[in-house]
């Protein structure tokens, strides 16, 4: 495994992981956001 291969494949893996993390985190945040909105509707009114 050369440095170039480590960088190339490492970059691809890192990109994929970051993309998955971005999507998953956004989904989680969207769920939290929905719940928070409901919570705020209760707290502050609609």
């Amino acid at each position, binding site marked *: 495994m*050369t440095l170039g291969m480590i960088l190339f494949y490492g970059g691809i893996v890192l990109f994929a992981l970051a993309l998955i993390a971005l999507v998953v985190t*956004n989904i989680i945040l969207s769920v939290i956001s929905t719940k928070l909105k409901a919570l705020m509707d209760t707290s502050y009114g609609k």
Partner: protein
Amino acid sequence: MITQGTVLKNTYQIMEMIGAGGGGTIYKAYHLGLKKFVVVKRVKDNWASIMDSEKEAAIIKNLKHQYLPQAYDFIRLPEGIFTVIDYIPGYSLDKYLFKQYRFTQQQILHWLKQAAEALIYLHSQQPPIIHSDIKPANIMITTQGNICLIDFNVSLTSTPDSTINATSRGYASPEQYLNLHPINQPQPGIPFVPQYHFDMTTPLDARSDIYSLGATFYHLMTLQRPPRMPEHIPEIPDTLEGFDETLIHIVNKMTRYDPRERYQTAQELLNDLQNIRKLDKRSIAQRRSRLICNTVFPIIMAGAIVMSVAGYLTMGQEAEEAFQEKVTYADNCTDNQEYEKAQQAYEEAMGMKPEDISPYFGMMSLYTSQGDFESAVRYGKDTLAEHSFKDNTDKERADFYYILGNAYFEQEQYEEAVTQYTQTVSLNRKNPEYYRDYAIALARSAYVAKAKEILEEAHDLGLENDSVALVNAEIAFAENRTEDAISYFRKAIDQSSNENLIQRAYLYLCRTYQKTGKYDDLIDTITTHESLFNTYRKKVSKLMCAEADLSKAENTPEANRQKLFAEKAIDLYNEVRQMGPVSKTSQFNLATAYEYTNDFTHAEEVLTEMVKTYPNDPDVYARLAILEADQQGQIKEVSSRDYTKFKEYYDKAEQLNQTNKVNGTSSAVILQMEQLMQEIKDNNWLKE
């Protein structure tokens, strides 16, 4: 005297007194014209004396806002000054507070926003109207659940020097207290009612109303009246049940002692109230998380892309380095005569970059280094048929054509060599050595005029004198000027310091000796300068000596001398065979040499060995047939001769000759064999 039933200004019929406060007495009245209830407020006498009725009536009448009561009239009568405003059905907040009513956060927020809007309206008037008496009692909650900010007359009466005031304890801003100066002292036996002189040494602004509104809502949220003395209101704790931190912080900011720390305008307050969701720490945390997520991950992704691109470029660089390393290693192996390792390395390099010419060139060098020009030619032709090497430079491709041309040249296929050299110089016109070898090949192909022309071009390109002499020698040889040729070759050898050129010149000189039958000169030259030659040329030179000895054996009538020369030739041929593969002609010559020494066994051995190498070559069988005939010819008693084996070789040779005949003609060996057959047949030596 105002009593129930009194009609003011023939319009407002007093119904009942509904309240009395710092500003005056309040009556519920009936508007006879509009047929609706109104509120009539009698302004206290000491205030009335300072009110500018006309101006302030106009201001009050012009105020129109959904959270402010509509003012209808401003009446100056002998009984006093009256203001007429909307009757607001509902209760003021102090009534609810009196009952310890606990409001929800939603209600608080809703009313706070409405109050802020009302203040924005009042503060935006010209001149700005500062309510200056906001407190629970002055905020009505209508039957629709909205607020109505009442009793803002005081704001109109604020003058720089006055004994009136509307400083509601606990709700008035600290700066309002600064405008109050006590004018009486408690006396024994008399109930003390403190009186103050009020002035405007500290001018009030919007921040004062914001404070009072904050104090009011402090009371609503905590159900505790703010401290009566002008001191800091303790901050509402974040943990106050039923309320979020954000709202608590807003109210706390409204009630800061220092006006500079409060909201500076009601609009600023309203903005925060409207954006309370955004200010909520949970919302901030969520937004921060989203920001981090949408910033950090894309940055990582961008970094990953950069990393991948860098990796891709590095991989390309590494592949190129590995390829070059492999080719260099193979070249070194070739130089060290480790041919198997070299071939393997070149093949691996080809696997790395199939369209790069370097390893193919290396393979050609490998074959030519071993003197295997036949393989070099075959390999070169196949390679050019399969690859275009478009990505390589013209110079690199020229080198490949050049080495292929050299292989053809060494194979004595000069026409083909000329073709390859033509390609070479068309791709690289700057190398005079290409022109030199091109001219030599032309001379050997008998294109003497063209050879001279190319020599001229080479000369113009700066061809060295030794090379010029070499080409001139070849041209002279082609023109049968052998003495000139020998002279030029010697000149080339004398002038050159290039080992390769010197070796070539010696070999070409010996070739001239060979063609002119000067075998002794040839053998003498080679014997003297053998140490100069590289492995391959040493092999060639030995073959030339062997051929010279064989020629001498052929040309010598004396049997002993013939045998002597033949034995020398045999020794040299066997020496050469030890050095590597030899050509078909040389093997035939070796067999012939054995024949001259009457060693038919070894001669047959050589030819039988050749059958394995050239199983489909009719010449080998023809040569075997001739050898067999010669062997039988040695038997003096004709009847004892047996030409059965000869016949077998003959038949095999003829069979192969039928399929392998080139242009319908047979080789000299076949013809010689057929002649022998005819002789045998004529003599009836063949047994049935």
